[in-house]
């Protein structure tokens, strides 16, 4: 195992001969990667929630009117994924049946202990925002629906049919308040995931205060991309018109967040290689060794530079709306994959470095494992099933005429 690695890890001659040299020794307990694909998926899912919520917040709190067509949808999208945020964690835990210990005895000194409470609050806030946003629609649907759906609508409208101007004004006020709370809650929900990694001092690629920032901005990128892609695809499939102004606003927002995310990602790499402090040789060896293709080629070149160029073209040149939408969908797709690769490179890449500071281990994903590839596909499919069901209760799109 160790000798097989030697050739890949030390191909780069940039590791100076006078610095601490690697002999490719992996601590005996470090051969196994403990945080595997489910922990890649978890920040990816909360990131999607976060980014979708930003779109809704821009409309409901900051009054960006052009986002109206997708504001409701992005809330539902966020909810569908938030419902599944705990799934990868439960699949990852060695003893998932003990998950309530996190709520019973949360250790105040642990970054991870707050999860249960932050998750519960964000779920509650998002749920109430959706109920209040949809209330006038739900009241209307209540009168036209039958059977159990009618009962459901009665419950979620609090059995009130009051859609008077005064009541709607009250709703609007509460929505603004909840969204205002929701932004920090969403930021904490995701930023703390970044901090879980950033707070591990034993791991030289993780332990940087930039980690929560990088996670937050890349979360916004993935969430906004997902909403753009989903909006275009669903509207196309349903043969409904696409609001071009809305797409332009989303793409511009996406461009802004993506520039920030990419800058910080590169800043981290740059400061590692400039400072050359501590275990820099391990980080350098990792990025140029085991992660050479997944980081430099896939994440940076294909996943970041290419979308930046396309986004630049979309921003500078005046394109026909058909082409613009096509490029928007394409870029969003690439960025969705880019963020997933970035999570992979951070979570799994970081663990490839042995704490011996002298070698790298390997990770081979399994197909049939509770954290395997099949499980990943299932976990990623469930939010879409939830979204489908949600779409039956809450109409995705705002009516055109208003």
């Amino acid at each position, binding site marked *: 195992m160790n000798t097989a690695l030697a050739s890949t890890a030390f191909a780069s001659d940039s590791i100076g001969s006078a610095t601490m040299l690697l002999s490719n020794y992996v601590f005996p307990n470090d051969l196994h990667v403990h945080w595997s694909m489910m922990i890649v998926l978890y920040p990816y899912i909360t990131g999607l929630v976060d980014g979708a919520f930003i779109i809704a917040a821009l409309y409901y709190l900051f009054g960006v009117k052009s986002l109206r067509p997708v504001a409701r949808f992005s809330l539902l999208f966020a909810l569908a994924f938030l419902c599944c945020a705990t799934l990868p964690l439960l699949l990852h835990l060695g003893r998932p049946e003990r998950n*309530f210990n996190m*709520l*019973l*005895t949360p*250790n*105040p*000194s642990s970054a991870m202990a707050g999860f249960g409470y932050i998750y519960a609050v964000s779920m*509650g806030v998002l749920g109430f925002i959706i109920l209040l946003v949809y209330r006038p629609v739900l009241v209307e649907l209540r009168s036209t629906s039958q059977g159990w759906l009618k009962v459901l609508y009665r419950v979620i409208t*609090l*059995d*009130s049919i*009051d859609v008077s101007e005064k*009541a709607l004004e*009250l709703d609007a006020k*509460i929505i603004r308040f909840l969204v205002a709370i929701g932004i920090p809650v969403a930021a904490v929900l995701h930023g703390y995931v970044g901090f879980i990694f950033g707070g591990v001092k034993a791991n030289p690629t993780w332990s940087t205060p930039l980690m929560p920032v990088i996670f937050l901005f890349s979360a916004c990128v993935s969430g906004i991309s997902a909403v753009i892609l989903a909006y275009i695809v669903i509207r196309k499939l349903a043969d409904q018109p696409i609001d071009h102004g809305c797409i332009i606003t989303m793409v511009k927002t996406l461009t802004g967040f993506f520039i920030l995310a990419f800058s910080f990602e590169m800043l981290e790499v740059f400061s590692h290689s400039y400072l050359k402090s501590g275990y820099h040789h391990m980080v350098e060896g990792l990025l140029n060794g085991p992660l050479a293709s997944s980081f430099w080629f896939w994440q940076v070149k294909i996943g970041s530079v290419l979308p930046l160029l396309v986004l630049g073209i979309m921003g500078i040149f005046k394109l026909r709306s058909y082409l613009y939408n096509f490029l928007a969908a394409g870029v969003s797709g690439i960025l969705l994959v880019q963020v997933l690769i970035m999570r992979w490179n951070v979570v799994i890449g970081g663990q490839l470095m042995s704490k011996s500071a002298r070698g790298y281990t390997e990770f081979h994903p399994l197909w049939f494992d509770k954290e395997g590839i099949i499980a990943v596909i299932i976990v990623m499919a469930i939010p879409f099933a939830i979204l489908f069901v949600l779409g039956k209760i809450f109409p995705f799109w705002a009516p055109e005429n208003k």
Partner: protein
Amino acid sequence: MGFSYKMRLILVCLGIFVMAWVGFLFKSLLLPDSFGLYGHFRADAITEAVEVPVRHGTNSSCFKCHPFEAKIHKAGLHSTISCEFCHGPYADHVAVDKKTGTLPVKTGKQITTLCLRCHNTQIMARSEEVIKTVAMPDHLRNQQVKLTHDCNQCHHVHAPLKYINRAKQITGLMEKG
């Protein structure tokens, strides 16, 4: 149900408040015994850690029933070697003072392998002050014995110089005592 919409919202808020309160009540009820006695952990876990069964005994626990081997072992240069390193753990052999299993005794080439684990001079990290090492098969050649010899054909495994010293005494190369 004649509540106004605003009243209903207030009731929902109250409901959430009550639920959260009940949740915290349950949290304190479900807190494990002895949690927080010494810190943010279950103090009983220390007691449980103490109660882990001992599987590896000490040399004295072996000597209790094996006085013959004990006498040789304690007198020789190998007196600091653990019986259980070569023979296996005490708990696989004895439980509550009753013999429950037979431990293996190494034979033939197994013994040579075992000896060279410590005495192989090729492993340079072994300080001369700590251990006497030999080069194989040079040692066999120097001692003018067959190269197929196992270590225990000259050295008693429990007291390596027992036979050697005895032979020297008999041949007058060494004084008795």
